[in-house]
């Protein structure tokens, strides 16, 4: 017999009410948890993908689309840029490093990216098997591509035209790639790409024989030589009628702000659920108080001080809240994991529910505080039970 045992006995005596309170709170906690886990993971993945890329240069169009297509590989590019312009820009004194990207084809839904070894090096990729490409029509698979397709070095693969929805009808079956290597997982967009030489993309699209003056690439990832370049280079690039510059940092921040508004709405919904659970706990305890007038009087008669009765009710609120928090966290993590599995094919590295963030402690503290606050008024009333009166009226 303990105070917690007593509280638990009272909760067990009204299992439906207790379950309702716990479930309501758990749904609120789960909603807030899922949002926290998902937005944190997406944000940190985007930050990692964009890290070290100061500027993206591509065809004229929306800067957001340029960043989405060339940095995160989730959108299609607006067009191509002349190789000559790209080369000129790469040689600019404000540019420390420039990585070319040539897009256009995909392999079973994974993008084939014509680029240089710098691109793999930029994300710190290491080979899990084989080697990097040394000639056109050699391909290196990102870790996730190799895992999902089961393709190993030595295999021949065909690119499909288009990088939007997978389009198997337009296979480039006259020009297969030879897989020469597989990368280790990097936790970046690289894991879901097939890398090859820029020349491969030209060859597949039948422009391989033409002189370089006529060649095109899709985008250039630029690293500034000095911080000052940020002030001048974008303007300079945008002045060129063929080019468009976009800052990944700026565009991602803009994207977060746009997503952020939606996340805020959902989070508010979760908070409302938690508060509703608090109200429901308050109502349940207040009602229970009416039923338990005599029990509380008996407890006082048996020697329990007013503080004990207060503690009993507060503990009940706490147990309900703790149950809701535990269930809610479990639910939130399970839902995030399930979401990750469901969206696996469409994601840059999938969401995981196995991640635990320190911020979750705030959710725990908040939900427990709501439970305690809900129990406060009933607990104060319990404390003031008129013992003799209750025992006399019976």
């Amino acid at each position: 017999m303990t105070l917690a045992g007593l509280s638990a006995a009272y909760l067990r005596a009204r299992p439906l009410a207790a379950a309702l309170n716990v479930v309501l709170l758990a749904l609120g906690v789960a909603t807030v948890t899922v949002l926290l886990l998902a937005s944190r993971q997406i944000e940190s993945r985007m930050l990692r993908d964009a890290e070290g890329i100061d500027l993206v240069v591509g065809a004229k169009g929306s800067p957001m689309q340029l960043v989405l297509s060339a940095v995160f590989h989730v959108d299609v590019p607006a067009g191509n840029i002349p190789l000559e312009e790209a080369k000129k820009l790469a040689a600019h004194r404000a540019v420390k490093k420039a990585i070319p990207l040539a897009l256009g084809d995909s392999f079973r839904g994974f993008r084939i990216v014509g680029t240089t070894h710098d691109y793999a090096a930029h994300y710190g990729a290491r080979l899990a098997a084989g080697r990097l490409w040394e000639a056109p029509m050699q391909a290196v698979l990102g870790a996730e591509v190799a895992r999902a397709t089961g393709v190993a070095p030595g295999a021949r693969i065909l690119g499909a035209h288009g990088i939007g929805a997978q389009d198997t009808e337009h296979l480039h079956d006259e020009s297969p790639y030879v897989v020469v290597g597989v990368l280790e997982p990097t936790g970046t967009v690289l894991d879901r790409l097939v890398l090859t030489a820029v020349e491969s993309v030209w060859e597949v699209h039948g422009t391989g024989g033409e002189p370089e003056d006529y060649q095109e690439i899709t985008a250039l990832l630029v690293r500034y030589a000095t911080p000052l370049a940020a002030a001048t280079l974008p303007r300079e690039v945008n002045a060129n009628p063929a080019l468009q510059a976009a800052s990944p940092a700026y565009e991602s921040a803009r994207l977060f702000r746009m997503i952020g508004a939606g996340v805020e709405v959902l989070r508010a919904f979760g908070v409302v659920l938690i508060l509703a659970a608090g109200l429901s706990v308050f109502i349940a305890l207040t009602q229970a108080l009416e039923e338990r007038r005599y029990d509380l009087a008996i407890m006082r008669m048996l020697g329990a001080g007013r503080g004990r009765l207060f503690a009993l009710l507060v503990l009940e609120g706490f147990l309900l809240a703790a149950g809701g928090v535990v269930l809610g966290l479990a639910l939130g993590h399970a839902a995030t994991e399930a979401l990750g599995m469901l969206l696996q094919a469409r994601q840059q590295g999938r969401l995981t529910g196995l991640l635990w963030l320190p911020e979750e402690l705030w959710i725990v503290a908040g939900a427990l505080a709501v439970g305690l606050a809900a129990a406060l008024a009933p607990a104060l009333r319990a404390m003031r039970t008129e013992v003799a009166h209750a025992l006399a009226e019976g």
Partner: protein
Amino acid sequence: MLSLRGVRKRYGEREALALERFEAAAGEHWLVLGPSGCGKTTLLHLLAGLLSPSEGEIEVAGERLDRMNGARLDRWRGRTVGLVPQKLHLVPSLTVEQNLLLAPYLAGLAPEPARARALLADLGLAAKARARPAELSHGEQQRAAVARAVMNRPKLLLADEPTSNLDDAACEAALALLQSQANACGATLVVASHDRRAAARFDRQLRLGE
């Protein structure tokens, strides 16, 4: 063991009890007899320290109750007084055994599961230890309430209308049980009743409302 002097209890203008003098020695069995509304329950609650008198002195087991209050009084009551209320008030969400164990727990005494089992066996409730109060007959509920009242070996055992709604045999049994349990822990027994059948079992009687 207990003594009241010039005790008055008023609710607003209305006087619920006026008692010039009442004294009982340790181990005595007293019957407080009187018609409904004469202040019997009020007297028991004053003796238990559940009410404080409007006037007068109340001393029980060496403590001046009219001068004690708050947590100290609660603690004293839990350890010194056992009360069987008229409506029994067993805690419905606990088992019979847990109802008994509640007494030492709330009084801040060491748990005594062995005493609880022995008492239940003594009162023929061994088979009902794990039952809820609602599953018990009225007679069984009353015995469980007596068992709970004597769990902490009180110095003062109080019972409010223990014979109401009982037939003659049950009435006898209920009073006999209270007396034997009071003797077993050496407690002073004070039974409040308006039932004249109870009078036969008590040599010492306090008549109220005459």
